[in-house]
Protein backbone atom coordinates (compact mmCIF):
# COMPACT_ATOMS: atom_id res chain seq x y z
CA UNK A 1 0.00 0.00 0.00
CA UNK A 2 2.80 2.39 0.95
CA UNK A 3 4.60 1.45 -2.26
CA UNK A 4 1.47 2.24 -4.26
CA UNK A 5 1.18 5.63 -2.57
CA UNK A 6 4.84 6.32 -3.23
CA UNK A 7 4.40 5.39 -6.87
CA UNK A 8 1.34 7.64 -7.23
CA UNK A 9 3.17 10.46 -5.48
CA UNK A 10 6.19 10.16 -7.77
CA UNK A 11 3.94 9.95 -10.81
CA UNK A 12 1.93 13.00 -9.73
CA UNK A 13 5.07 15.01 -9.03
CA UNK A 14 6.45 14.03 -12.43
CA UNK A 15 3.27 15.14 -14.20
CA UNK A 16 3.21 18.51 -12.44
CA UNK A 17 6.93 19.07 -13.03
CA UNK A 18 6.43 18.47 -16.74
CA UNK A 19 3.42 20.77 -16.81
CA UNK A 20 5.46 23.45 -15.08
CA UNK A 21 8.34 23.00 -17.51
CA UNK A 22 5.92 23.16 -20.43
CA UNK A 23 4.45 26.46 -19.25
CA UNK A 24 7.83 28.08 -18.58
CA UNK A 25 8.96 26.80 -21.98
CA UNK A 26 6.05 28.39 -23.83
CA UNK A 27 6.65 31.71 -22.03
CA UNK A 28 10.23 31.75 -23.35
CA UNK A 29 8.94 30.86 -26.82
CA UNK A 30 6.33 33.62 -26.74
CA UNK A 31 9.03 36.08 -25.69
CA UNK A 32 10.89 35.19 -28.87
CA UNK A 33 7.94 35.88 -31.20
CA UNK A 34 8.24 39.70 -31.46
CA UNK A 35 11.78 39.29 -32.79
CA UNK A 36 10.43 37.13 -35.60
CA UNK A 37 8.64 40.11 -37.10
CA UNK A 38 12.06 41.26 -38.34
CA UNK A 39 13.00 37.77 -39.56
CA UNK A 40 9.70 36.60 -40.96
CA UNK A 41 11.43 34.47 -43.58
CA UNK A 42 12.15 31.96 -40.80
CA UNK A 43 8.41 31.66 -40.16
CA UNK A 44 7.61 31.45 -43.86
CA UNK A 45 10.08 28.58 -44.28
CA UNK A 46 8.42 26.72 -41.44
CA UNK A 47 4.93 27.44 -42.79
CA UNK A 48 6.03 25.66 -45.92
CA UNK A 49 7.16 22.65 -43.87
CA UNK A 50 4.22 22.37 -41.48
CA UNK A 51 1.47 23.98 -43.57
CA UNK A 52 1.99 23.58 -47.29
CA UNK A 53 3.39 20.06 -46.98
CA UNK A 54 0.29 19.08 -44.96
CA UNK A 55 -2.03 20.23 -47.74
CA UNK A 56 -2.22 16.90 -49.54
CA UNK A 57 -3.50 14.93 -46.56
CA UNK A 58 -5.85 17.79 -45.63
CA UNK A 59 -7.34 18.06 -49.13
CA UNK A 60 -7.74 14.32 -49.69
CA UNK A 61 -9.27 13.79 -46.24
CA UNK A 62 -11.54 16.80 -46.69
CA UNK A 63 -12.94 15.42 -49.95
CA UNK A 64 -13.70 12.02 -48.46
CA UNK A 65 -15.18 13.37 -45.22
CA UNK A 66 -17.41 15.69 -47.27
CA UNK A 67 -18.48 12.81 -49.51
CA UNK A 68 -19.36 10.63 -46.52
CA UNK A 69 -21.31 13.48 -44.97
CA UNK A 70 -23.18 13.97 -48.24
CA UNK A 71 -24.08 10.29 -48.47
CA UNK A 72 -25.08 9.80 -44.83
CA UNK A 73 -26.86 13.15 -44.71
CA UNK A 74 -28.88 12.32 -47.81
CA UNK A 75 -29.87 8.88 -46.48
CA UNK A 76 -31.15 10.45 -43.27
CA UNK A 77 -32.82 13.53 -44.75
CA UNK A 78 -34.54 11.76 -47.60
CA UNK A 79 -36.72 9.83 -45.11
CA UNK A 80 -38.19 13.17 -44.02
CA UNK A 81 -38.34 14.63 -47.50
CA UNK A 82 -35.76 17.21 -46.49
CA UNK A 83 -32.93 16.31 -48.83
CA UNK A 84 -32.78 19.92 -50.06
CA UNK A 85 -31.29 20.74 -46.65
CA UNK A 86 -28.28 18.58 -47.40
CA UNK A 87 -26.09 21.60 -48.11
CA UNK A 88 -26.86 23.10 -44.69
CA UNK A 89 -26.25 19.79 -42.91
CA UNK A 90 -22.88 19.26 -44.61
CA UNK A 91 -21.76 22.84 -44.08
CA UNK A 92 -22.84 23.06 -40.42
CA UNK A 93 -21.20 19.74 -39.56
CA UNK A 94 -17.99 20.76 -41.28
CA UNK A 95 -17.72 24.32 -40.04
CA UNK A 96 -18.67 23.72 -36.43
CA UNK A 97 -17.02 20.37 -35.74
CA UNK A 98 -15.47 18.16 -38.37
CA UNK A 99 -13.43 20.80 -40.20
CA UNK A 100 -11.42 22.12 -37.26
CA UNK A 101 -11.31 18.84 -35.30
CA UNK A 102 -10.30 16.45 -38.07
CA UNK A 103 -7.82 18.88 -39.60
CA UNK A 104 -6.28 19.37 -36.13
CA UNK A 105 -6.00 15.60 -35.65
CA UNK A 106 -4.40 15.26 -39.09
CA UNK A 107 -2.13 18.20 -38.34
CA UNK A 108 -1.01 16.55 -35.09
CA UNK A 109 -0.22 13.32 -36.94
CA UNK A 110 1.49 14.89 -39.93
CA UNK A 111 3.12 18.13 -38.81
CA UNK A 112 3.15 17.73 -35.01
CA UNK A 113 5.02 14.45 -35.10
CA UNK A 114 7.47 15.88 -37.66
CA UNK A 115 8.14 18.93 -35.46
CA UNK A 116 8.80 16.75 -32.42
CA UNK A 117 11.08 14.39 -34.31
CA UNK A 118 13.01 17.25 -35.93
CA UNK A 119 13.63 19.16 -32.70
CA UNK A 120 14.31 15.94 -30.76
CA UNK A 121 16.88 14.83 -33.31
CA UNK A 122 18.49 18.28 -33.30
CA UNK A 123 18.86 17.83 -29.56
CA UNK A 124 20.18 14.29 -29.87
CA UNK A 125 22.79 15.35 -32.45
CA UNK A 126 23.94 18.29 -30.28
CA UNK A 127 22.72 20.87 -32.81
CA UNK A 128 20.81 22.74 -30.11
CA UNK A 129 23.81 22.62 -27.75
CA UNK A 130 25.95 23.85 -30.64
CA UNK A 131 23.65 26.80 -31.19
CA UNK A 132 23.74 27.70 -27.51
CA UNK A 133 27.53 27.68 -27.58
CA UNK A 134 27.39 29.96 -30.64
CA UNK A 135 25.36 32.35 -28.47
CA UNK A 136 22.22 31.64 -30.49
CA UNK A 137 19.16 30.89 -28.37
CA UNK A 138 17.53 27.75 -29.85
CA UNK A 139 14.20 28.69 -28.29
CA UNK A 140 14.16 31.86 -30.41
CA UNK A 141 15.93 30.56 -33.51
CA UNK A 142 14.47 27.06 -33.78
CA UNK A 143 11.37 26.71 -31.62
CA UNK A 144 9.66 30.12 -31.90
CA UNK A 145 9.44 30.15 -35.75
CA UNK A 146 8.04 26.61 -35.76
CA UNK A 147 5.52 27.47 -33.06
CA UNK A 148 4.30 30.59 -34.86
CA UNK A 149 4.16 28.76 -38.19
CA UNK A 150 2.03 26.01 -36.66
CA UNK A 151 -0.35 28.46 -35.03
CA UNK A 152 -0.79 30.43 -38.28
CA UNK A 153 -1.07 27.36 -40.50
CA UNK A 154 -3.76 25.54 -38.55
CA UNK A 155 -6.67 27.95 -39.30
CA UNK A 156 -5.67 28.03 -42.98
CA UNK A 157 -5.63 24.24 -43.17
CA UNK A 158 -8.96 23.95 -41.33
CA UNK A 159 -10.52 26.47 -43.73
CA UNK A 160 -9.17 24.50 -46.68
CA UNK A 161 -10.46 21.22 -45.22
CA UNK A 162 -13.92 22.70 -44.66
CA UNK A 163 -14.17 24.21 -48.14
CA UNK A 164 -13.03 21.03 -49.84
CA UNK A 165 -15.42 19.01 -47.65
CA UNK A 166 -18.36 21.08 -48.87
CA UNK A 167 -17.28 20.39 -52.45
CA UNK A 168 -17.14 16.64 -51.63
CA UNK A 169 -20.65 16.78 -50.16
CA UNK A 170 -21.88 18.67 -53.23
CA UNK A 171 -20.35 16.07 -55.55
CA UNK A 172 -22.17 13.19 -53.85
CA UNK A 173 -25.43 14.99 -52.99
CA UNK A 174 -25.98 16.95 -56.20
CA UNK A 175 -23.77 15.11 -58.65
CA UNK A 176 -24.58 11.51 -57.73
CA UNK A 177 -27.81 11.50 -55.71
CA UNK A 178 -29.76 14.19 -57.54
CA UNK A 179 -30.31 16.84 -54.85
CA UNK A 180 -31.34 20.16 -56.40
CA UNK A 181 -28.31 22.31 -57.16
CA UNK A 182 -29.96 25.63 -56.27
CA UNK A 183 -31.45 24.32 -53.01
CA UNK A 184 -28.07 22.93 -51.92
CA UNK A 185 -26.32 26.29 -52.23
CA UNK A 186 -29.16 28.66 -51.34
CA UNK A 187 -30.08 26.91 -48.09
CA UNK A 188 -26.42 26.77 -47.14
CA UNK A 189 -26.11 30.48 -47.88
CA UNK A 190 -29.12 31.39 -45.77
CA UNK A 191 -28.33 29.21 -42.75
CA UNK A 192 -24.55 29.31 -42.39
CA UNK A 193 -23.61 32.34 -40.31
CA UNK A 194 -20.39 34.24 -40.57
CA UNK A 195 -19.84 34.77 -36.84
CA UNK A 196 -21.03 31.48 -35.34
CA UNK A 197 -20.04 29.06 -38.06
CA UNK A 198 -17.10 30.54 -39.90
CA UNK A 199 -15.36 32.73 -37.33
CA UNK A 200 -16.11 30.81 -34.13
CA UNK A 201 -16.54 27.36 -35.65
CA UNK A 202 -13.64 27.23 -38.06
CA UNK A 203 -11.21 30.04 -37.30
CA UNK A 204 -11.29 30.41 -33.50
CA UNK A 205 -11.44 26.69 -32.82
CA UNK A 206 -8.63 25.87 -35.21
CA UNK A 207 -6.53 28.75 -33.90
CA UNK A 208 -6.84 27.32 -30.36
CA UNK A 209 -6.12 23.80 -31.63
CA UNK A 210 -3.10 25.16 -33.52
CA UNK A 211 -1.69 26.68 -30.34
CA UNK A 212 -2.18 23.50 -28.31
CA UNK A 213 -0.97 21.01 -30.91
CA UNK A 214 2.11 23.03 -31.85
CA UNK A 215 2.94 23.78 -28.21
CA UNK A 216 2.81 20.08 -27.34
CA UNK A 217 4.83 19.16 -30.44
CA UNK A 218 7.69 21.61 -29.92
CA UNK A 219 7.82 21.02 -26.17
CA UNK A 220 7.94 17.25 -26.53
CA UNK A 221 10.78 17.59 -29.04
CA UNK A 222 12.74 20.01 -26.87
CA UNK A 223 12.16 17.95 -23.73
CA UNK A 224 12.85 14.58 -25.39
CA UNK A 225 15.47 12.24 -23.98
CA UNK A 226 18.25 12.64 -26.59
CA UNK A 227 18.33 9.05 -27.78
CA UNK A 228 16.53 7.28 -30.64
CA UNK A 229 14.21 5.66 -28.10
CA UNK A 230 13.58 9.00 -26.40
CA UNK A 231 12.73 10.78 -29.66
CA UNK A 232 10.44 7.93 -30.66
CA UNK A 233 8.61 8.10 -27.32
CA UNK A 234 8.32 11.89 -27.59
CA UNK A 235 6.82 11.63 -31.07
CA UNK A 236 4.24 9.15 -29.83
CA UNK A 237 3.39 11.39 -26.88
CA UNK A 238 2.88 14.32 -29.24
CA UNK A 239 0.29 12.49 -31.33
CA UNK A 240 -1.53 10.96 -28.36
CA UNK A 241 -1.53 14.02 -26.10
CA UNK A 242 -2.38 16.53 -28.77
CA UNK A 243 -5.21 14.35 -30.14
CA UNK A 244 -6.71 14.01 -26.66
CA UNK A 245 -6.24 17.72 -26.04
CA UNK A 246 -8.01 18.60 -29.30
CA UNK A 247 -10.98 16.37 -28.54
CA UNK A 248 -11.28 17.63 -24.96
CA UNK A 249 -10.92 21.26 -25.95
CA UNK A 250 -13.46 20.82 -28.74
CA UNK A 251 -16.09 19.95 -26.17
CA UNK A 252 -15.18 22.94 -24.02
CA UNK A 253 -15.15 25.35 -26.96
CA UNK A 254 -18.40 23.97 -28.34
CA UNK A 255 -20.06 24.39 -24.94
CA UNK A 256 -18.81 27.97 -24.70
CA UNK A 257 -19.68 28.97 -28.26
CA UNK A 258 -22.88 27.14 -29.12
CA UNK A 259 -24.57 26.38 -25.79
CA UNK A 260 -28.00 28.10 -25.83
Amino acid at each position, binding site marked *: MIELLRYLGRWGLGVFQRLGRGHIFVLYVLAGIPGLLFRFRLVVAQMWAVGVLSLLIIVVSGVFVGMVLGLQGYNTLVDFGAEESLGVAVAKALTRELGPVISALLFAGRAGSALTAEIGL*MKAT*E*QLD*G*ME*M*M*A*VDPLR*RVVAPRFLAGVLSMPLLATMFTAIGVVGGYFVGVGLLGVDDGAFWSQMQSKVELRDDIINGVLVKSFVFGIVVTWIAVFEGYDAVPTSEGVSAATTRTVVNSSLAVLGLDFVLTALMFNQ
Partner: protein
Amino acid sequence: MLDQNGNHSRAAAGEGPIVEVRGLSFARGSRIIFNHVDIDIPRGKVTAIMGPSGSGKTTLLKLIGAQLKPDAGRVSVDGVDVHRLPRDEVFEMRKRMGMLFQSGALLTDLDVFENVAFPLREHTRLPGSMIRTLVLMKLEAVGLRGARKLMPRELSGGMARRVALARAIALDPMMIMYDEPFSGQDPISMGILVQLIRQLNDALGLTSIVVSHDVAETASIADYMYVISDGKIVGHGTPDEMGRAESKWVRQFMQGLPDGPVPFHYPGAGYIDDLLASEEP
Protein backbone atom coordinates in the same frame (compact mmCIF):
# COMPACT_ATOMS: atom_id res chain seq x y z
CA MET B 1 38.83 37.75 -4.68
CA LEU B 2 35.40 38.55 -6.12
CA ASP B 3 33.83 41.97 -6.39
CA GLN B 4 30.12 42.65 -5.83
CA ASN B 5 29.19 41.56 -9.35
CA GLY B 6 30.92 38.24 -9.06
CA ASN B 7 33.77 39.41 -11.24
CA HIS B 8 37.29 38.48 -10.46
CA SER B 9 39.56 41.26 -9.30
CA ARG B 10 41.93 40.53 -12.20
CA ALA B 11 39.07 40.98 -14.61
CA ALA B 12 41.11 42.90 -17.12
CA ALA B 13 41.73 40.67 -20.11
CA GLY B 14 45.27 39.54 -20.69
CA GLU B 15 46.14 38.92 -17.04
CA GLY B 16 46.25 35.54 -15.31
CA PRO B 17 44.73 32.30 -16.58
CA ILE B 18 41.90 32.65 -19.07
CA VAL B 19 39.87 30.03 -17.20
CA GLU B 20 40.03 29.58 -13.44
CA VAL B 21 38.15 26.73 -11.83
CA ARG B 22 38.07 26.84 -8.05
CA GLY B 23 36.51 24.29 -5.67
CA LEU B 24 34.27 22.94 -8.41
CA SER B 25 31.80 20.28 -7.30
CA PHE B 26 29.18 18.75 -9.53
CA ALA B 27 27.02 15.64 -9.21
CA ARG B 28 24.43 13.92 -11.35
CA GLY B 29 21.98 12.43 -8.87
CA SER B 30 24.06 10.45 -6.39
CA ARG B 31 27.04 10.17 -8.74
CA ILE B 32 29.77 12.68 -7.96
CA ILE B 33 31.43 13.95 -11.14
CA PHE B 34 33.71 16.61 -9.61
CA ASN B 35 34.70 16.97 -5.99
CA HIS B 36 36.41 20.29 -5.18
CA VAL B 37 38.41 20.52 -8.39
CA ASP B 38 40.85 23.38 -9.15
CA ILE B 39 42.07 24.00 -12.71
CA ASP B 40 43.88 26.89 -14.39
CA ILE B 41 43.87 27.22 -18.18
CA PRO B 42 46.74 29.52 -19.25
CA ARG B 43 46.25 32.05 -22.04
CA GLY B 44 47.55 31.36 -25.50
CA LYS B 45 48.36 27.72 -24.77
CA VAL B 46 46.92 24.36 -25.70
CA THR B 47 45.75 22.71 -22.48
CA ALA B 48 44.60 19.10 -22.52
CA ILE B 49 42.02 17.71 -20.13
CA MET B 50 42.38 13.96 -20.17
CA GLY B 51 40.83 11.07 -18.35
CA PRO B 52 39.00 7.80 -18.82
CA SER B 53 35.57 7.67 -20.45
CA GLY B 54 32.87 8.88 -18.08
CA SER B 55 35.28 10.90 -15.95
CA GLY B 56 33.44 14.16 -16.65
CA LYS B 57 35.63 15.79 -19.29
CA THR B 58 32.73 16.89 -21.49
CA THR B 59 30.83 17.96 -18.38
CA LEU B 60 33.76 20.23 -17.50
CA LEU B 61 33.50 21.96 -20.89
CA LYS B 62 29.76 22.43 -20.37
CA LEU B 63 30.46 23.95 -16.96
CA ILE B 64 33.02 26.33 -18.48
CA GLY B 65 30.52 27.27 -21.21
CA ALA B 66 27.79 27.79 -18.57
CA GLN B 67 25.56 25.15 -20.12
CA LEU B 68 25.59 23.44 -16.71
CA LYS B 69 25.69 25.00 -13.25
CA PRO B 70 28.04 23.66 -10.59
CA ASP B 71 26.75 22.52 -7.21
CA ALA B 72 29.59 24.41 -5.56
CA GLY B 73 32.65 26.35 -6.61
CA ARG B 74 33.38 28.92 -9.26
CA VAL B 75 34.29 28.96 -12.94
CA SER B 76 35.78 32.24 -14.18
CA VAL B 77 36.36 32.93 -17.85
CA ASP B 78 38.51 35.96 -18.62
CA GLY B 79 38.02 37.10 -15.04
CA VAL B 80 34.22 36.77 -14.98
CA ASP B 81 32.28 34.17 -12.98
CA VAL B 82 30.17 32.77 -15.80
CA HIS B 83 27.56 31.25 -13.50
CA ARG B 84 26.68 34.58 -11.92
CA LEU B 85 26.01 36.28 -15.25
CA PRO B 86 22.45 36.89 -16.47
CA ARG B 87 21.39 34.86 -19.51
CA ASP B 88 22.00 37.60 -22.10
CA GLU B 89 25.52 38.25 -20.77
CA VAL B 90 26.26 34.51 -20.86
CA PHE B 91 25.36 34.64 -24.54
CA GLU B 92 27.65 37.65 -25.03
CA MET B 93 30.46 35.72 -23.35
CA ARG B 94 29.85 32.70 -25.59
CA LYS B 95 30.46 34.83 -28.68
CA ARG B 96 34.07 34.92 -27.49
CA MET B 97 34.24 31.14 -27.01
CA GLY B 98 34.20 28.53 -29.72
CA MET B 99 33.32 24.94 -29.13
CA LEU B 100 33.91 21.92 -31.29
CA PHE B 101 31.50 19.15 -30.38
CA GLN B 102 32.37 15.48 -30.66
CA SER B 103 29.74 15.01 -33.37
CA GLY B 104 30.53 18.31 -35.08
CA ALA B 105 26.96 19.43 -34.35
CA LEU B 106 26.58 20.86 -37.85
CA LEU B 107 23.11 22.09 -38.74
CA THR B 108 21.87 19.35 -41.03
CA ASP B 109 19.54 21.56 -43.09
CA LEU B 110 22.35 23.95 -44.10
CA ASP B 111 25.26 23.29 -46.45
CA VAL B 112 28.90 23.71 -45.43
CA PHE B 113 29.04 27.38 -46.47
CA GLU B 114 25.87 28.29 -44.57
CA ASN B 115 27.00 26.37 -41.50
CA VAL B 116 30.16 28.46 -41.29
CA ALA B 117 28.23 31.63 -42.14
CA PHE B 118 25.61 30.88 -39.47
CA PRO B 119 27.24 32.69 -36.50
CA LEU B 120 28.19 35.62 -38.76
CA ARG B 121 24.63 36.00 -40.03
CA GLU B 122 23.23 35.68 -36.50
CA HIS B 123 25.56 38.12 -34.76
CA THR B 124 26.73 40.63 -37.34
CA ARG B 125 25.17 42.88 -39.95
CA LEU B 126 27.97 42.37 -42.43
CA PRO B 127 27.06 42.55 -46.13
CA GLY B 128 26.76 39.27 -48.00
CA SER B 129 29.98 39.83 -49.95
CA MET B 130 32.00 40.24 -46.77
CA ILE B 131 30.40 37.20 -45.16
CA ARG B 132 31.32 35.23 -48.28
CA THR B 133 34.93 36.36 -48.05
CA LEU B 134 35.15 35.55 -44.33
CA VAL B 135 33.58 32.13 -44.77
CA LEU B 136 35.92 31.26 -47.62
CA MET B 137 38.89 32.34 -45.49
CA LYS B 138 37.79 30.13 -42.60
CA LEU B 139 37.14 27.19 -44.91
CA GLU B 140 40.52 27.71 -46.58
CA ALA B 141 42.14 27.52 -43.14
CA VAL B 142 40.70 24.04 -42.60
CA GLY B 143 41.26 22.95 -46.20
CA LEU B 144 37.61 22.65 -47.18
CA ARG B 145 36.96 25.69 -49.36
CA GLY B 146 36.16 23.37 -52.23
CA ALA B 147 33.54 21.52 -50.19
CA ARG B 148 31.41 24.56 -49.44
CA LYS B 149 28.39 23.35 -51.37
CA LEU B 150 28.25 19.92 -49.74
CA MET B 151 25.58 19.06 -47.19
CA PRO B 152 26.64 17.67 -43.78
CA ARG B 153 25.38 14.19 -44.73
CA GLU B 154 27.90 14.15 -47.60
CA LEU B 155 30.90 14.76 -45.31
CA SER B 156 33.12 12.21 -43.62
CA GLY B 157 33.52 12.41 -39.84
CA GLY B 158 36.85 14.18 -40.14
CA MET B 159 35.53 16.68 -42.69
CA ALA B 160 32.51 17.42 -40.49
CA ARG B 161 34.81 18.27 -37.59
CA ARG B 162 36.92 20.52 -39.79
CA VAL B 163 33.80 22.37 -40.93
CA ALA B 164 32.74 22.67 -37.29
CA LEU B 165 36.20 24.03 -36.53
CA ALA B 166 35.84 26.64 -39.29
CA ARG B 167 32.47 27.59 -37.78
CA ALA B 168 33.99 27.76 -34.28
CA ILE B 169 36.57 30.32 -35.42
CA ALA B 170 34.09 32.32 -37.54
CA LEU B 171 33.66 35.01 -34.88
CA ASP B 172 37.39 35.10 -34.02
CA PRO B 173 36.95 33.84 -30.45
CA MET B 174 39.51 34.18 -27.66
CA MET B 175 39.37 30.47 -26.85
CA ILE B 176 38.16 27.22 -28.35
CA MET B 177 37.06 24.12 -26.48
CA TYR B 178 37.48 20.81 -28.31
CA ASP B 179 35.38 17.89 -27.15
CA GLU B 180 37.05 14.59 -28.15
CA PRO B 181 38.27 15.93 -31.51
CA PHE B 182 40.17 12.76 -32.42
CA SER B 183 37.75 10.01 -31.46
CA GLY B 184 36.74 7.70 -34.29
CA GLN B 185 39.09 9.31 -36.82
CA ASP B 186 41.31 7.52 -39.30
CA PRO B 187 45.04 8.28 -39.00
CA ILE B 188 45.01 10.86 -41.82
CA SER B 189 42.04 12.78 -40.43
CA MET B 190 43.54 12.58 -36.96
CA GLY B 191 46.84 13.96 -38.21
CA ILE B 192 45.04 16.82 -39.96
CA LEU B 193 43.06 17.70 -36.84
CA VAL B 194 46.14 17.54 -34.59
CA GLN B 195 47.98 19.89 -36.92
CA LEU B 196 45.01 22.24 -37.30
CA ILE B 197 44.47 22.64 -33.57
CA ARG B 198 48.09 23.58 -32.98
CA GLN B 199 48.41 25.82 -36.04
CA LEU B 200 45.15 27.69 -35.46
CA ASN B 201 46.03 28.19 -31.81
CA ASP B 202 49.37 29.77 -32.69
CA ALA B 203 48.30 31.65 -35.81
CA LEU B 204 45.16 33.20 -34.32
CA GLY B 205 46.51 33.72 -30.80
CA LEU B 206 43.81 31.51 -29.31
CA THR B 207 43.62 29.55 -26.12
CA SER B 208 42.69 25.92 -26.72
CA ILE B 209 41.20 23.42 -24.29
CA VAL B 210 41.33 19.90 -25.71
CA VAL B 211 39.30 17.22 -23.99
CA SER B 212 40.47 13.84 -25.13
CA HIS B 213 41.51 10.35 -24.14
CA ASP B 214 43.84 9.91 -27.11
CA VAL B 215 47.10 10.17 -25.21
CA ALA B 216 49.73 10.28 -27.95
CA GLU B 217 47.94 12.75 -30.23
CA THR B 218 46.98 15.07 -27.42
CA ALA B 219 50.39 14.98 -25.75
CA SER B 220 52.00 15.89 -29.07
CA ILE B 221 50.27 19.29 -29.23
CA ALA B 222 49.49 20.13 -25.59
CA ASP B 223 51.52 22.65 -23.61
CA TYR B 224 49.98 21.51 -20.35
CA MET B 225 47.87 18.53 -19.30
CA TYR B 226 45.39 17.68 -16.57
CA VAL B 227 44.30 14.12 -15.87
CA ILE B 228 40.89 13.72 -14.24
CA SER B 229 39.67 10.54 -12.62
CA ASP B 230 37.22 9.64 -9.92
CA GLY B 231 35.99 13.23 -9.55
CA LYS B 232 39.35 14.85 -8.90
CA ILE B 233 42.56 15.97 -10.62
CA VAL B 234 44.97 13.05 -10.29
CA GLY B 235 47.85 14.75 -12.07
CA HIS B 236 48.89 17.79 -14.06
CA GLY B 237 51.98 19.10 -15.76
CA THR B 238 53.67 19.32 -19.13
CA PRO B 239 53.45 16.23 -21.36
CA ASP B 240 57.04 15.32 -20.41
CA GLU B 241 56.29 15.61 -16.71
CA MET B 242 53.18 13.53 -17.11
CA GLY B 243 55.13 10.84 -18.94
CA ARG B 244 57.42 10.53 -15.93
CA ALA B 245 54.72 10.85 -13.27
CA GLU B 246 54.79 8.48 -10.30
CA SER B 247 51.06 8.59 -9.65
CA LYS B 248 49.39 5.21 -10.27
CA TRP B 249 46.36 6.97 -11.75
CA VAL B 250 48.45 8.96 -14.23
CA ARG B 251 50.62 5.96 -15.15
CA GLN B 252 47.60 3.77 -15.79
CA PHE B 253 46.09 6.38 -18.06
CA MET B 254 49.21 7.51 -19.91
CA GLN B 255 50.41 3.93 -20.51
CA GLY B 256 46.96 2.49 -21.19
CA LEU B 257 47.19 -0.21 -18.51
CA PRO B 258 44.03 -2.33 -18.39
CA ASP B 259 43.89 -2.58 -14.60
CA GLY B 260 44.86 -0.26 -11.79
CA PRO B 261 43.13 2.46 -9.82
CA VAL B 262 40.51 2.44 -12.58
CA PRO B 263 39.49 -1.23 -12.24
CA PHE B 264 39.00 -3.57 -15.18
CA HIS B 265 35.86 -5.00 -13.56
CA TYR B 266 32.81 -2.86 -12.97
CA PRO B 267 31.99 -3.10 -9.23
CA GLY B 268 29.59 -5.95 -8.46
CA ALA B 269 29.03 -9.08 -6.41
CA GLY B 270 31.78 -11.70 -6.16
CA TYR B 271 32.29 -13.86 -9.26
CA ILE B 272 31.68 -17.20 -7.48
CA ASP B 273 28.63 -15.86 -5.66
CA ASP B 274 27.24 -14.61 -8.95
CA LEU B 275 27.75 -17.95 -10.69
CA LEU B 276 26.09 -19.85 -7.87
CA ALA B 277 23.15 -17.47 -7.59
CA SER B 278 19.70 -18.18 -9.07
CA GLU B 279 18.94 -17.53 -12.76
CA GLU B 280 17.82 -13.96 -12.14
CA PRO B 281 20.12 -11.61 -14.12
